């Protein structure tokens, strides 16, 4: 190819990249809206002679959107709501706010991801930790990922036998402690000033 054509193609590609970057920045600074996860479009076959790209205006540096206190609080409230849901859209919204321009919102998003309790959030949390420049935030993101990697505690309702067994164990412990205390007193040792484990008076 002739150098002029190559140069033209490179310039067009550079302009397209700039436009994409601008679009991404604008999206990051918007209050989070539900994100639809669309199926990936099939890759277009490479054309032998690609048509010339439309002219894209050069990227203009825009000041990031400054959130008001109300906007910030509203987004944090939304994050709390999403954290109580159990649907992919809510998780997607939470994960989007991990890269929000507001630190308070990002912190709330980390907590919301923990409360949502899906292991699907782990890769995004780790990626956000890599991209963050704030050491404390990196630690929080990685701690959240580790938290989600743990199995959640589940409760099994006690059977009557378990209730009885637990009562017996607790009674045995109480008797042991009582005997231990009496032994100490018999040997002239003062009992501890605060109630020891198991002495139990409120």
């Amino acid at each position, binding site marked *: 190819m002739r150098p002029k054509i190559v140069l033209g193609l490179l310039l067009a590609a550079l302009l397209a990249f700039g436009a994409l970057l601008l679009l991404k920045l604008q999206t990051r600074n918007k209050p989070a809206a539900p994100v639809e996860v669309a199926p990936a479009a099939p890759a277009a076959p490479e054309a032998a002679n690609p048509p010339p790209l439309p002219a894209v205006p050069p990227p203009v540096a825009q000041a990031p959107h400054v959130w008001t206190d109300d906007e910030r609080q509203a987004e944090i409230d939304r994050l709390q709501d999403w954290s109580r849901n159990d649907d992919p859209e809510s998780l997607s919204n939470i994960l989007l706010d991990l890269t929000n321009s507001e630190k308070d919102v990002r912190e709330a998003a980390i907590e919301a991801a923990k409360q949502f309790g899906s292991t699907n959030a782990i890769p995004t949390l780790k990626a956000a930790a890599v991209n963050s420049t704030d050491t404390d935030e990196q630690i929080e993101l990685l701690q959240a990922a580790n938290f989600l990697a743990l*199995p959640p*505690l589940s409760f099994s309702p006690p059977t009557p036998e378990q209730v009885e067994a637990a009562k017996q164990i607790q009674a045995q412990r109480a008797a042991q402690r009582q005997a231990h205390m009496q032994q100490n007193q018999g040997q002239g040792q003062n009992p501890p000033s605060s109630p020891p484990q198991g002495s139990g008076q409120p």
Partner: protein
Amino acid sequence: MKKLAMFAVAAAALVFAAGKVEAAGDLVLTISGSVQYQYSSSITVGKTKTVSFSNATIYNMLSNSIANESNGLAATLPAKGIIKYDPEDSDGKTTGFFYVTDKTNGFYYPLSGYDNNSAYYSFMELDAYIIITNGYDLDLGFGYPYDGSANYTLNAAGSGSLSGKDTAMLFVHDNPYVYDLSESPNNLYEYDNPDYGSEYIYNAFEIQGLMTVSLTYKTGSINGGSLSLTGVGNAMVNGQDQASVISGKASLK
């Protein structure tokens, strides 16, 4: 007698249905952490397991327990309820109490108070005693043996902030008649309740540690801010008392 019982049930229902006028300073609980406990079976002996807990875990535990309570405490909690904390009002015994509500604030269940027999109950307590160098001390729950300190920055109208640090304990459990472990926080195992005698506990979590206090005031009342407690503590998991909260965080904001 039957009439009396019906009256008691109706009175309890009224208490829960009457609701609470939510104060501007009521704070939403967010809790998370990990618990390590021993488990044994015919195959595994003395193995430990680490699991996580969150708002949903605690809420699930409370829902199951409250659904099966007696003495007028039984209720069905909403599926997506919210646990809030009122740091200024009293449950009749202590200042500062937790309650369950929902997003529309149309549901109210106090997590501590008095049951139908006028016996005190508590599923959840935050114990702290904050010495305020330039004002009245903040005595939350049953207090706590290790006092912290904080300072007001208020104007003449009583608006401003309170900030400081304090050691505190959060205790949440499934038996409402086991409460006030502030003086003996390691005692989860048996308990003599003044009203109902010996009580046993099946699931419980403690977080003891440092609490950051950052509250805002408007005309003398709390209207926002946060209490943030990080620490460790004892735990009971499914009746297994060889358990510990190895990392816990409770945030009220």
